[in-house]
């Protein structure tokens, strides 16, 4: 059952569900953060429109810094500004930032504990035709391993807006993962969001799906289908905040259902799948499977073709969920 306390979009399961790119929510959140706090500054590496910083740049030209195609400079200039009391948001494609500038992030943002927020847009295979070079899949793993770094992957534009505003008032380094393509609006303004908290969007007893980003929608679709065609009662947890991961919510769900499937548009090794596996191994091991990219790169194609090819859709999740249920019952 959809958790009514989550106030999800009533049109969520309709084929006509409203869609919007997750990155657009980031743009709105950044603008709002800029309006409420004059210390918020934005830096971009020659991708102002596509990372949705344009509205901020237009409204606050004196607080917008164009860096050019120089991702190492992007984060280190931001670190220097943070040391002067600014709250810099930096954006590029995730493949380049945090893809190219990891050591600078490690030293000048994390070890240095500077208040820099890194927005990585165009993450995942759904970037499509640009191909493997631009489909960032390792960002969650790269950022999650850094001490002091918070990692957030919102499930829709509304959550991205909330997350961006929340990060502007959160002290410390953070990474926010954004996707290029339009994706269904899952939440509403009333849906709760808190840094450090996972939300149980749908309650169930047979299996838990822990998902983040674009995969939350497919997890909810899969849960509906598993209920109607297989009489399975699936719980869906939105782990928008991958670090710090909400251990309490995830372990409680694992205790209740006895099996956990993770879903992400990223490498499962070190990604959300890795993070959930670590938590369960430490606290409450149950049969588990991970849906995502399995130690390989993407390629060119339409987003739909690629998601289907890599099993990152509702049918892909259903197949893995049924296998997992079988393993659970043989235990």
């Amino acid at each position, binding site marked *: 059952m959809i958790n009514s306390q989550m106030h999800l979009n009533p049109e969520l399961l309709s084929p006509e569900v409203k869609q919007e790119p997750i990155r657009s929510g980031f743009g709105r959140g950044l603008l709002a953060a800029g309006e409420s706090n004059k210390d918020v500054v934005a830096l971009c590496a020659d991708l102002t429109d596509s990372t949705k910083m344009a509205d901020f740049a237009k409204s606050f030209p*004196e607080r917008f810094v164009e860096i050019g195609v120089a991702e190492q400079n992007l984060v*280190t200039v931001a670190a*220097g500004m943070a040391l002067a*009391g600014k709250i810099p948001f930096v954006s590029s494609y995730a493949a380049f930032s945090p893809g190219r500038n990891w050591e600078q992030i490690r*030293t000048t943002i994390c*070890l240095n*504990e500077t208040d820099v927020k890194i927005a990585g847009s165009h993450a995942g295979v759904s970037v499509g035709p640009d191909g493997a070079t631009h489909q960032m899949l390792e960002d969650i793993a790269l950022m999650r391993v850094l001490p002091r770094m918070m990692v957030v992957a919102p499930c829709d534009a509304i959550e991205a807006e909330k997350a961006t505003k929340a990060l502007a008032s959160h002290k410390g380094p953070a990474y926010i993962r954004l996707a290029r393509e339009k994706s269904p609006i899952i939440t509403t303004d009333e849906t709760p969001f808190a840094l450090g908290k996972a939300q149980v969007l749908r309650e169930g007893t047979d299996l838990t799906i822990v998902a983040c980003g674009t995969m939350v929608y497919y997890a909810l679709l899969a849960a509906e289908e598993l209920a109607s065609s297989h009489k399975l009662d699936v719980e869906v947890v939105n782990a928008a905040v991958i670090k710090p991961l909400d251990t309490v919510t995830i372990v409680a769900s694992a205790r209740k259902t006895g099996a956990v499937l993770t879903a992400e548009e990223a490498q499962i090794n070190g990604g959300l799948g890795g993070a959930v596996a670590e938590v369960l191994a430490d606290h409450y091991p149950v049969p588990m499977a991970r849906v995502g990219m399995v130690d390989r790169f993407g390629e060119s194609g339409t987003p739909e073709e690629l998601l289907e090819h890599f099993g990152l859709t509702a049918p892909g999740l259903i197949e893995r969920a049924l296998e997992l249920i079988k393993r659970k019952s043989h235990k």
Partner: protein
Amino acid sequence: MANDIRQDIIKMLVEAGSGHSAGPLGMADIFTALYFEVLNHRPKQPDWPERDRLFLSNGHIVPVRYATMARAGYFPLEELKTLRKFGSRLQGHPERLRLPGLESTSGPLGSGLSQAAGHALALRMDGNKARVYCITSDGEHDEGNIWEAVLFAAKNKLTNLTVIIDRNNIQIDGPTEQVMPLGNLAAKYAAFGWHVIEIDGHNMQAIISACDLAKAIVEQPAVIIAHTIPGKGVDYMEYDYHWHGNPPGTLETPGAPPKAEQAKVALHELRTLGGRIRSEHE
């Protein structure tokens, strides 16, 4: 003062048993000039908002900064003995969170100039008149990140930024011009739109004058290319790249005394040099 600082450096490195010798000795005059003449700062109030900021990009020469800070009154001289030891505020490479007065954390080369430039831009946004100084090394200019920052500072006309390059011509693997030739750094910076000042980095008056001149430049950031002698003040270390990353007592090099004698000889030389430390360029 610079000579006392050099002796402090030798003692610290011997006590620590590891660390870089040549760079810190070569930069002792510049750090002395900065902390005792150039910087507007308050040792007892390291977070004073109006202080001039000194970013150290090539973090490995931090022993000279620690020694100078102690001499300037930031912390007791006694604490210098803890360099590189467990629990010390004086980490092997500088960590901002450990020791008040360090503006940033550094060591991995190439990222200090960007931070200094970003900081200078942020201060200007806030109307803060403090000046930002950034010390970099020549070898560090192998890093692409440096040149990204060089473009950025020129674009933004960061007149509140002064960069000092330790042009000592050595890096770990050998002479800079063999490892990766930097050629004419002055011409390169000028072509990037910077105001370039070249000085002898052991001439105290030249260092101070260059810093004064840099403040007067309009429309451009200023870079001071300071020609220094690595290992300055200790005969057997001068110009020898082997001493870049090693403390006295750890290496046998041509012309150096036996390992057991190296620290003693270095300290003796530095003690007796008195006013005789002066530049070969003079």
